[in-house]
């Protein structure tokens, strides 16, 4: 009897101490932020789905009631995830990833189409979107792979596999016609950047976006000389300036090459422009291509002279930039779907269409703008009630915050998200294992991407890409997906000392 008691007691004390340590090492700040955001989100959904009359938010037939149910499930799910052994994520990372890929692949052949998308699996009354959970699986697989002992990002094979882990689920999701959800996977590049990927790739990505926007926006507008296209002129000019800056940053220190390129290149172009404007009009774009060619030859000369490979990379960047300019038009007109073209055109102000593609954004701006400094108060928004804003409880949920809580409320929500992300950076950095760090960065990058694109879209800064705002948008799949992402990281973080 005593024997059993002893065993029982010891076991209890072991269990007790383990649990104690879990509760102690758990990051309560993050959990607090999570709870605050989820509660704010629920109130927003109440506001967005509310019709005057019967405020019955606890009725499970209403969207607010359903969301409450899903929040309850999420909390339970979060608790279960914290109770699980932290090592299972490391051990089963590939298994989880593999199962998820199969599920994504299966969903492509899903006969149920909901609004042109095949991404929903319907199980009786519940519809699930595997794409929401695939982010978690991908983050795990990425963390697992990058934490392997011999992993080295500079090795070609390792980089290819890393990219495959990111792009395979992304492509599968594109096949489900969920381009928005697929774009989220680009956020993993932020993780790669933290883990040592050269920053120039991110730089190149940013350049590509700039070229694309300028190239498309001004593709059909003539400069005053009547011969030069604005878009072409601006992008080629930017190529010269970027090249000069890159040579400055990555070239041989103390070398004046960047100065030569910048001054001579820009000078020639400016002179050519003046000549074209006031003497004989000609296509300055051609002159710019000549300048770029000369610049290319100069870079080759520098490479042969200084024997620094970076010059070749810079040359490669310049050539790609020019190629991108000329392919962007093609991509825009032939690859993108008409509705995507219109969304981009409206965003860039090329088409004014407050009733068609611009309708959502225009209405959401009106809704937010009408909120003023302090907002109209909970459940008092008129724009959202009158159903002017489509998708107002899913993708456009931030409208309700803007309208009912005003500038103050919106800024607080944005700041809460920012604090969560900064806190996650802090947590990720204090991980002792690379696995934990990579996973942590994946989580925060995904949150950041959703935040940026979703609120940017509602504010009319980014194109209309249908991805949810974490913890705010109505829907069980997305809420659970984000909860899993976050709580698995918290569990890994709680075990960081071992």
């Amino acid at each position, binding site marked *: 009897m005593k024997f059993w008691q002893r065993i029982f007691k010891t076991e209890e004390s072991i269990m007790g101490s383990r649990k104690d340590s879990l509760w102690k090492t758990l990051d309560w700040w993050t959990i607090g932020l999570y709870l605050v955001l989820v509660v704010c989100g629920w109130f927003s959904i109440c506001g967005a789905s509310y*019709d*005057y*009359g019967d405020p019955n938010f606890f009725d499970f*037939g*209403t969207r607010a009631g359903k969301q409450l149910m899903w929040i309850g499930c999420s909390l339970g799910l979060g608790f279960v995830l914290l109770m699980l052994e932290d090592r299972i994520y490391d051990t089963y990372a590939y298994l989880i990833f593999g199962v998820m890929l199969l599920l994504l692949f299966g969903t492509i052949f899903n006969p149920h*189409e*909901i*609004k*042109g998308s095949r991404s929903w699996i319907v199980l009786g009354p519940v519809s699930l979107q595997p794409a929401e959970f695939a982010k978690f699986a991908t983050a795990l697989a990425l963390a697992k792979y990058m934490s392997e002992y011999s992993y080295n990002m500079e090795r070609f094979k390792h980089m290819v596999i890393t990219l495959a882990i990111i792009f395979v689920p992304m492509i599968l999701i594109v096949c489900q016609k969920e381009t928005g959800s697929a774009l989220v996977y680009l956020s993993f590049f*932020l993780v790669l*950047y*933290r*883990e*040592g990927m050269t*920053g120039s790739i991110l730089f190149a990505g940013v350049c590509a976006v700039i070229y694309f926007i300028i190239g498309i926006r001004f593709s059909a507008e003539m400069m005053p000389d009547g011969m030069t296209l604005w878009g072409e002129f601006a992008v080629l000019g930017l190529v010269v300036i970027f090249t000069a800056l890159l040579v400055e940053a990555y070239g041989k220190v103390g070398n004046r090459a960047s100065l030569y390129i910048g001054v001579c290149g820009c000078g020639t172009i400016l002179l050519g422009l003046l000549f074209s404007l006031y003497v004989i009009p000609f296509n300055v774009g051609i002159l710019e291509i000549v300048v770029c060619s000369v610049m290319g030859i100069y870079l080759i000369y520098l490479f042969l002279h200084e024997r620094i490979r970076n010059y070749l990379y810079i040359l490669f960047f310049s050539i790609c930039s020019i190629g991108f300019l000329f392919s962007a038009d093609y991509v825009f007109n032939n690859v993108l779907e008409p509705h995507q073209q219109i969304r981009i055109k409206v965003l860039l102000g090329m088409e004014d*269409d*407050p*009733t068609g593609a611009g309708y959502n954004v225009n*209405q959401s*701006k*009106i*809704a*937010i*703008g*009408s*909120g*003023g*400094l302090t907002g109209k108060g909970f459940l008092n928004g*008129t*724009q959202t*009630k*009158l*159903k*002017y804003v489509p998708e107002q409880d899913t993708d456009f949920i931030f409208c309700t915050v*803007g309208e009912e809580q*005003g*500038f103050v409320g*919106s*800024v607080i929500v*944005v*700041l809460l998200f*920012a604090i969560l*992300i*900064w806190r996650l*950076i802090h947590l*990720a*950095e204090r991980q002792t294992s690379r696995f934990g760090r990579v996973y942590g960065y994946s989580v925060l990058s995904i949150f*950041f991407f959703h*935040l*940026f694109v979703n*609120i*940017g879209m509602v*504010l*009319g*800064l980014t194109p209309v890409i249908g991805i949810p705002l974490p913890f705010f948008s109505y829907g069980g799949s997305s809420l659970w997906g984000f909860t899993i992402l976050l709580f698995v990281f918290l569990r890994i973080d709680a075990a960081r000392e071992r």
Partner: protein
Amino acid sequence: MDRNYNLSKRRYVIGTVVLCVVILFVVRLFVLQVMTDEYKQNADSNAFLRKIQYPSRGIIYDRTDKLLVYNQPAYDITVITKEITSLDTADLCRTLKITPEFLRKKFRDMKDKRLNPGYSPYTNQVLLTQLSAEDCGVLQEKLFKFPGFYIQRRTIRQYNYNVGAHILGDIAEVSKGDMELDEYYQPGDFIGKLGVERSYEKQLRGEKGVEILLRDAHGRIQGNYMDGKYDKAPIPGKNITLSLDIELQQLGERLLEGKIGSIVAIEPSTGEVLCLVSSPSYDPHLMVGRERGKNHLAMSRNPWKPLLNRAIMGTYPPGSTFKTTQALTFLQEGIIVPGTMYSCSHGFSFRGLHVGCHGHPSPLPLIPAIATSCNGYFCWGLYHMIGARQKYGSVQKAMNTWRDYMVSMGFGYSLGIDLPGEKRGMIPNAKFYDKAYRGSWNGLTIISISIGQGEVTATPLQMANLGATIANRGYFITPHVVKKVEGEQLDSLYLKKRYTLVEKSHYEEVAQGMRMAVLGGTCRAANLPDIEICGKTGTAQNHGKDHSAFMGFAPYHNPQIAVAVYVENGGWGATYGVPIGKLMIEKYLKGKLSPEDEVLATDIQNRRIDYGLEER
């Protein structure tokens, strides 16, 4: 270590990027919410109201430009729940001639977010649809008594003839599934459900327009936004001309009265369907207005299945009409030449297997074999083809060669007619028999497919298409019921010639056989003095009484019409198939029936076949 240290500094870069985005958002929010009042005014006084303007649906004509389907005004009752201050339910129900239960149900459905996701008590919601002008007129006078109720004018379909329901189809309110598939549709919109209305929905419906109205915070309309600069006028639907000859269709439906069956006629040179009769049919007027649901339900419970378009959905054994395909195949494969004689002593008897036949001279060559519809001849042909191991190597290869011929003639797969729900029929292949007979089978096992029995089935459309192929001597154009869509090219599928695997010269032999059948064979009753009709009877065995079939075309040279007739349990091919085929051809080529054929038509119209009450 130095490197790792450097990398961990990247956290500040990432943190700064986040900060930049936050600043960007805050600045943008500040600009939108605090700096300008413009948006606030927009919201307070200039809210948009998007008023949908419905286009008129395209009109449908027949090939002779007779008006078949047009639009008639009808009225919807819409309601803004928030504006209902008092409601005298009893009075409203009396006015609209509905029961209070029905009204309550309609209100419940309207407010149910699952059925009507766009519900809001502040916007106009559709309560009742398709009221007639009379019903609505009464309400109009008393409308002041019912605040919150509005009348919206729209159009419904109206039909000039009471035939052709299967082809014309109908329209009905969109279902939830329709709305999920296509974002164009909103609750209360109409969509084609059957027939041409469905297959040409996109062309017929046109495009909805929109009027953008401004309204103040109290919901009062203040006028058009930007003086209508952004309004979009509705684009009316495109008119459609069918290839159907409505008078021929009328005659067809008349002849099949009280019988279950189909008549399909095709213009061989174009593939245009001249008539597509499926009996029993129904009056298209039944599918219009508020009675549609009730009528539709009643018909879907009718054991004779009037909603089923048997011409393209019924799959039957083609019977002896199928022998023409066999003759063509054997000729092309060199199994027989026109002079090949087979003996037939009251049928095909070989190794204990017997397929019966009727009295005619024996042995006989191909053309009389077609004319007298000799079973023995074609059984021998198939037996020799499937058994030709030296030519094909195996029974399986011979079988699949045979299958390829049938498929090239339009059997075994749906032809691709522009109507929903076409069935493909059945042409067995070697794999099918390997499975059915566990690999041990030969020409004798499957001999009945040579006379269009056994596993072979086809739709009446495919049989008529066979007639068109023979009329064209070797090709067909995919049958279609729409001749022209206003301002649009016809689908290239309906312009392209599809050649079979058989040469033209062999078709000449078969056509000659079919001509002989009319002059002195099984189709003698189809003979007309001034039209050279070619035909082939069919008497298809099945569990009950035989099905009566006919497939033919006319004139012999330069054919204008190919026709297939199929009457379930009609007995001999000559009983129903042949006279009906003759009447259809005569009507189309001459425009009217001769007096004695008018008598024949009335006689056939009045004949009834007893089908009992079991489900068919």
